[in-house]
């Protein structure tokens, strides 16, 4: 009986800690200035969480290594560039199209949609793009999938980066090429009004936190759904899954589409937050940045991926530029006769993390229980008892 009591105690303390943590996460910007660097980094980290959770559906659950995730980020950002700025300024005789915009934006030329519509648009476009990218990979397996997705990511990045040479719908350019599209409309939500990232970052923080919560909820539900179990079956053994009646084509395409949609959501959020869309950032390195989050946290483990994304987000936006390149470390390096900035080699750090994790702890920091058992108990099918325990 004492053990049971202890367990109950443990659970209570656990819940208490979780509640305190959640409150701290939700309220911390109130105790910071409105335009705070930490809040800024936290917003970026949380938007990476959304993307990493999306990539986790494809790589972690379905076991399809996607090296071109930047494509969905690109589409998500471009959606805001197209439909929330004066980019298509000639539309409707320079009067513009406005749906659900604030009174200020309503007078601008170009197409301007409300943020919620942008999110829906990004989800639709990215889901379709995901399915299209997934189609050619259906017959392939393993590392060939990785290369085809990489190629698609590069193609899409290139097309947007040179989009000023491409015309669509008459005289309109596809993108602004290497120049950025700016300004993007601020987020304007019903009941909350229009945000202003130049004055106060906190609304953006809470908006992205809400997005993360929704995405987390969807992720957990997906994982436990028929589809999620089909993905995991596919990852474990494609042939066995197919012979058990898992429809391979549909399951795989849904993985790409769902994963892509999350990337689109995050992109559609970051457009208004950055207030500009720059096609130069659509590079392979970004795909690896997101992949590193998934790997660091643990492939297939939802909380692990959240941890990985937050950790790498802060590593990228705070630890490397502010701490490693800060005065203190700089002085130490100078005294050793070394003179270089860590910001320059950020991606080297991510690469190092990838190698280190794969060699030392391939299951990630917070491993998914099923995968951990596989990796620790050797290859081969799971033990019968392990199958019954294999729920997180």
């Amino acid at each position, binding site marked *: 009986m004492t053990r049971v009591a202890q367990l109950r105690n443990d659970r209570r303390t656990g819940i208490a800690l979780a509640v305190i943590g959640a409150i701290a996460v939700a309220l911390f910007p109130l105790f910071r200035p409105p335009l705070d660097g930490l809040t800024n980094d936290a917003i970026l980290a949380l938007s990476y969480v959304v993307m990493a959770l999306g990539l986790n559906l494809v790589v972690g659950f379905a*076991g399809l*290594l996607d*090296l071109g995730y930047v494509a969905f980020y690109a589409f998500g950002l471009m959606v805001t560039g197209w439909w929330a700025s004066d980019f298509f300024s000639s539309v409707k005789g320079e009067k513009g199209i406005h749906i659900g915009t604030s009174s200020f934006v309503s007078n601008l030329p170009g197409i301007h949609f409300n943020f919620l519509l942008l999110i829906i648009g990004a989800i639709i476009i990215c889901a379709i793009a995901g399915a299209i990218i997934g189609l*050619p990979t259906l*017959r*392939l*397996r*393993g*590392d*060939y999938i*990785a*290369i*085809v997705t*990489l*190629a*698609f990511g*590069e*193609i899409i990045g*290139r*097309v947007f*980066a*040179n989009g000023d*040479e491409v015309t669509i719908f008459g005289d309109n350019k596809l993108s602004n090429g290497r120049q950025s599209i700016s300004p993007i409309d601020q987020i304007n939500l019903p009941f909350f009004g229009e945000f202003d990232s130049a004055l106060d970052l906190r609304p953006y923080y809470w908006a992205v936190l809400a997005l993360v919560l929704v995405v987390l909820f969807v992720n957990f539900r997906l994982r436990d759904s028929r589809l999620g179990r089909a993905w995991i079956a596919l990852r474990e*053994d*494609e*042939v066995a899954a197919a012979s058990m009646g898992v429809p391979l084509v549909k399951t795989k395409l849904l993985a790409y589409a769902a994963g892509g949609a999350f990337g689109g959501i995050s992109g559609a959020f970051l457009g208004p937050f950055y207030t500009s869309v720059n096609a130069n950032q659509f590079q*392979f*390195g970004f795909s*690896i940045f997101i*992949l*590193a989050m998934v*790997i660091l946290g643990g492939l297939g483990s939802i909380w692990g991926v959240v941890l990985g994304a937050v950790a790498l987000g802060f590593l990228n936006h705070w630890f490397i530029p502010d701490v490693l390149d800060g005065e203190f470390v700089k002085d130490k390096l100078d005294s050793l006769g070394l003179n*270089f900035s860590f910001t*320059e*080699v950020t*991606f*080297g*750090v*991510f*690469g*190092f*993390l*990838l*190698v280190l994790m*794969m*060699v030392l702890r*391939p299951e990630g920091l917070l491993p998914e229980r099923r995968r951990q058992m596989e990796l620790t108990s050797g*290859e081969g099918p799971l033990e019968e008892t392990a199958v019954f325990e294999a729920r997180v």
Partner: protein
Amino acid sequence: MEAASVTSAPPRRRSEAVREFLSQYGLIAILLILPVAYGIQDLSNDGNLNRLGNNLVEGLSNGAILALIALGYTLVYGIIELINFAHGEVFMLGSLSAAALYGTFGLTPDTGTGGLVLGLAAILLIAMFASASLNVMIERVAYRPLRGAPKLAPLITAVGMSFILQNVGILWIGASQVAVPDLLGSQKHLVDIWGVTITRGHVLAIAVTVPLVLLLTSFVARSRLGKAMRATAQDPEAARLMGINVDTTISLTFLLGGLMAGAAGLISALYQTSIWYFQGFSAGLYAFTAAVMGGIGNIRGAVLGGFIIGVIQGISDNRIGNDWTPAIVFIYLVIIMVFRPQGLIGEETREAG
């Protein structure tokens, strides 16, 4: 994962034969689109094929570099079924070290012919062995510990390794392109044949590549170690039982791939007269495309694929624009992967399924 490959081939039907025919010749047709289209355009605009000819020559010398890199991919993939993602960076570091050695040997564009030839030969050897030992080291550190792990694990370390090496390049020469002395006068015209200009750079690229490829082919085909490599590629377990040291053989494969990449590095430095930390990324992916196009695991195929991709790159650079070339090459990559994963010459890989 492997189980699917075991299923025996069903009896061939006519539709399958048609599909086979289409996949073989369709790819060749797609490859010919660019040269034929621009050939027709040239004929109607200028009345001759000079411009296309120049693109082709340019493309062939690009292709020589790609072919040497592609050999590294194809050898490694043939033996351990791993896309050695860091291979492009091995080439890049070969290029960087070759350029650094110019100064060590005191080579300048004014050096006499004899000194230049001797110096470059020495640099070629050093660059080759530098790249080779780097490649072997990568295998030891990043891939060997993961042998037997799920197949995607070494691919992910390979990507990580590639980023590490790129950043080594950044620390070495900085993040922007650096011009290196044009030792050979690579733009200097040697001969004009039918309006097609052949420069020293073109001759150099072919003159280094062809002997190296011949040496490599005969090494793999004739020598004892080459035989061990082929045996390991076919069946590592059986090779081990026959007394072949599989680990050494795999190291040897990485060594050979690195040698070729180092040579490509020197040619690239001499030919492009500039070096850049990022040159390995695109070159690596183009070379990988070349290796797949030729049939991965197939040495002659890799060389053929290298020249083809080089020509596509040459035409695209000149006609469509430098910025679009990666997109064009990657579109070819996707087409090949999807419709003919076994490549032009055809090496059935397990991936091709």
